[in-house]
């Protein structure tokens, strides 16, 4: 008679395969959802294109997001600001008509938030803008996006699409630029 663990391992093979298949399936399903239904570029009530505004027409970011250099939040422009231009420009396009219908009803436009930091994070646009951090550093190449897409900054400094901001990303940038107290927890947390 002989003894070895190999035959027993062979007997376990179907079970092992099942486990592997299930695990792979879970990962695959999770990944597929993340890749194809990321929810990081939601449809907006009006198909506003940053590519046209910021890219082709080279309107500066701060023209609409006036708050960014003054306040923690960048803010979205009021409806009147959009209308200010579009009373004249491209008035016949369907999206502009849609805008005008909001204006006519004096209703705000319910833009869907894309870059949404958790409640416990204190982020101030003002300090970053004043430190001359480019908007694109965090928001990615906005001027090329028709629809805004969640973008963060990878460790190597490149824009990382569909990936939410994580603490390590803020931290590495703060470290690189030797921000004063840049790694102190209370600088970014509240």
């Amino acid at each position, binding site marked *: 008679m002989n003894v070895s*663990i190999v035959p*027993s391992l062979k007997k376990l093979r179907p079970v092992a395969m099942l486990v592997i298949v299930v695990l792979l399936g879970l990962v695959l399903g999770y990944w597929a959802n993340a890749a194809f239904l990321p929810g990081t570029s939601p449809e907006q009530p009006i198909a506003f294109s940053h590519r046209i505004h910021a890219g082709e027409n080279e309107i500066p970011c701060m023209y609409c997001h006036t708050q960014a250099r003054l306040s923690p939040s960048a803010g979205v422009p009021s409806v009147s600001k959009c209308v200010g231009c579009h009373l004249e420009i491209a008035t016949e396009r369907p999206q502009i008509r849609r805008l005008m219908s909001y204006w006519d009803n004096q209703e705000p436009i319910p833009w869907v938030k894309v870059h949404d930091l958790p409640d416990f994070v204190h982020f101030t646009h003002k300090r970053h803008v004043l430190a001359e951090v480019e908007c694109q550093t965090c928001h990615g190449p906005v001027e090329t996006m028709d629809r805004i897409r969640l973008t963060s900054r990878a460790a190597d400094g490149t824009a990382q699409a569909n990936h939410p901001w*994580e603490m390590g990303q803020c931290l590495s940038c703060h470290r690189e630029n030797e921000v004063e107290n840049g790694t102190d927890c209370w600088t970014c947390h509240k």
Partner: protein
Amino acid sequence: MVAETNNLGYTDIHEDVVRSIVKTGPKYYIALATAGGTTLLCFFFPWFYQLYYGIGAAGMNHPGVWGTYLASFIFWIGLSHSGTLLSCVLHLTNSSWRKAMYRSAEAMTLFSLVVAATYVMVHVGRPWFIHWALPYPNQMELWPNFRSPLMFDVMAITTYITGSTIFIYMGSIPDFAAVRDRTSGWRNTMYTLLSLGWRGTDKEWHRLHWAYTFLAVLIIPLAVSVHSIVSWDFAMSIVPALHQTIFAPYFVVGAIYSGTAGIVTVMFVLRKYMGFERYITKLHFDNLGKLLLVLSLLWTYINAVELFTSWYSGTSEEYEAVGFKLFGFYAPLYWEMILFCAVAPLLMFSTRFRTSFMPMLILSIVINIGMYTERFLIIATSLPRQYLPDAWGVYVPSAVEVSIMVGSFALFTTLFLVFVKIFPSVSMYEVKETMATPKLGSVAPASGSPA
């Protein structure tokens, strides 16, 4: 020393152990279902409720921020102390009476630790982030704070669980091999893998012996450090009545004390219900009784010292703490503890008491009730009455806490019941070592079928 077992042969023990694993009666399933059901109902259900609601489901408050969860945690850690520690000590001192009981004692260690580790999850406010207390690379670049006594705990308990698991497993390899040959189907597969292809060659025995000895040498100081560290969770604070130098030895002695009592309980159950009457004998109870007696006296002594130093300090904080313990809200529990842990064990001065099974069982349970009370009182009488009298309060456990406490015993029982069906709960080869070697030419019944 082996007077009662020398009329038994190798095959007897072999058959008995294999039978205890393979032959399963309905009683076992009823017991398992009861224990499992109770675990589900009393442990997991209230715990999930607490996860949903928050720790507020328990009775903790300000300033009594710790409660029975931590008391139970210490209790289970304490219970874990005797098994492996005692086994290691007895292994190194080559005490042969250890051999029939140590496997289940070690199992007790292991499962106590599992329950204790679960209690950590029950205790913390946000167990879904408990991994932050483990050192692993993460995008936040944030690692645990290794200055914290709680981190000592994390490291010590992880090491202790790992060590105990390995120790019990290593000692079981030859027995897995023995059971492997008598089983078929999934059991055979399982035991083949568990035994790693053990054959019992002289080389294997030699390596096992040394590895086992080194493990024992490593685990003894580990076990002592584990409960010292648990005590430092308290003693490193500046809470009156907790900030005590004697706490580490106090906890270690208390742990071994309650653990040894726990072994007596487990011995009794194994002996009575698993059919090991022939291997677990009066001798074991007698020896454990002596050990318990010594530990009880030691424990009493440390308690007295603790009271004395607090009283002698003369500060209002310590004085009030002692007063509250002795005569305050929880005074009945305190005196219950003294009765159970210091007075009742004196019965064991009598040899007749030590060698009677049922009284020893009752006493061992009584001691553990007392020891649980001790842990509860350490928390419940000190934290709510610290330095600022205006902030004083009272902590009373809630129904959820009591239920989880009961459930934890069921969880332990469930694990143990599963254990006895997988592990040979008495170490065959070591019992065999205590027997006379078979005589030349004696005929043994054929066992197993040759390939």
